[in-house]
């Protein structure tokens, strides 16, 4: 299951270069930061704060790619480039989709972390 959401090669490479113990801590940091980023996206959207929205999407994209969560990264990039308008398309489903992809990523990372 982990394979489909996380690019294992990227993740393994990260472990090799930074060390498995360190990556475990880094995953924990991401898992505690990412929900805050999702909240930030929602509140920036509600406040029509385009700059904050773009910056948060940018941050989430960057972290996703670090762990090999390529699909999540691509979705975040779509929001970074598309901005508030992209998030408002289809009744704001974009953020909900992003959140459910994140849930899968969180699950996969938790499994990989224990491996």
């Amino acid at each position: 299951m982990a394979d489909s959401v996380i690019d294992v090669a990227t993740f393994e490479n990260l472990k090799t270069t930074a060390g498995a113990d360190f990556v475990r801590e880094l995953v924990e940091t991401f898992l505690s930061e990412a929900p805050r980023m999702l909240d930030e996206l929602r509140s920036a959207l509600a406040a029509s704060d385009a700059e904050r929205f773009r910056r948060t999407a940018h941050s989430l994209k960057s972290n996703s790619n670090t762990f090999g969560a390529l699909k999540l990264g691509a979705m975040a990039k779509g929001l970074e480039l598309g901005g508030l308008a992209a998030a408002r398309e289809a009744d704001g489903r974009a953020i909900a989709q992003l959140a459910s992809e994140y849930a899968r990523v969180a699950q996969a990372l938790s499994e990989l972390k224990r491996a």
Partner: protein
Amino acid sequence: MREGSHGGARLLVVDDNKVNRLLLSRNIELMGHRVAAAENGRVALELLRREAFDLLLLDIEMPEMDGFQVLEQLARDLQLRDLPVIVTSSLEGLDNIVRCIELGAEDYLQKPVNPALLKARIGTSLEKKRLRDQQKELVRRFATREVAEDLQQSGFTLGGKRVSGTVMFSDIRDFTPLVESQSPEDTIDLLNTYYTLMFNAISGHGGIVSEIAGDGLMAVFGAPLPLTDHGDAAVRAALEMIEMIGLFNVDQAAAGKTKIRIGVGIASGEMVAGYTGTNERATYTCIGDTVNLASRLEQYTKVAGHAILVDAPTHAALRAPPIEIQALGPVTIRGKAQPVEVFAVSTRESV
């Protein structure tokens, strides 16, 4: 932290994202460098102004102060503008990357950063910085701090500009018989001590020593950087020089060595200051009548029997606390068509 091949440079990582910050710091530590982290540009600048770093790894997208603003501030900061910056970001758009480089970033690395590439870029940047530091150190050793800064700020061009300032000439009286009476090692030793004392007195009053030759030196007050009360500053520097020589002579006498005496000539007015020479070898100097007069006054101290002689503009420039001055009246100076008003500054030391 591991031992590094660079002996551990000190790097600053700036990123608002905690995961990025931790990962970059980790990679850098594994290379054997020391690392500090800041979560936005404002915090980074505060750190940079407080502590010394060899390299900055800068994110662009940040709240409060972004990376572009940091690059702009660094470029304006004399102390920090040579700090190498590697931008690590996942910016979209080539124009943003170009903007980083235009603003002075040395390199750009796309996030997620490849550790091998990061290591190579950091190595290159640190090596470049080491060479630049070496070059700056050389300039500093062979020029004064002010001239070095002037060079850094304005770059090097031959040619001068008109400035208002004060020039001082000073040399050791009866130096030739002194040299003949002692070993060359003793003479070098004496000259080094003498120059250290004179440099301290002159720079302590805002002047720069622009030339040293044998036992003589030329100092300028008011160039390359403007100085208010340059005439007053020069006279007070001269008084301190005489006082220092007095103290030095106490040591010399105690060691059974020869005492020395100096003569100082000071003139104020307009002069042309700048770099003369060739593009390969040049020196910062001042030329003009004011310079010639200061040199003549220094020579005239031998005739007048006073240690410090100044011209009328310098005399008029003196400020409180009062300095005791004796007017010597108009004096015919070699190289001057008209007699010149000369003033002797009273010193406690015997000349």
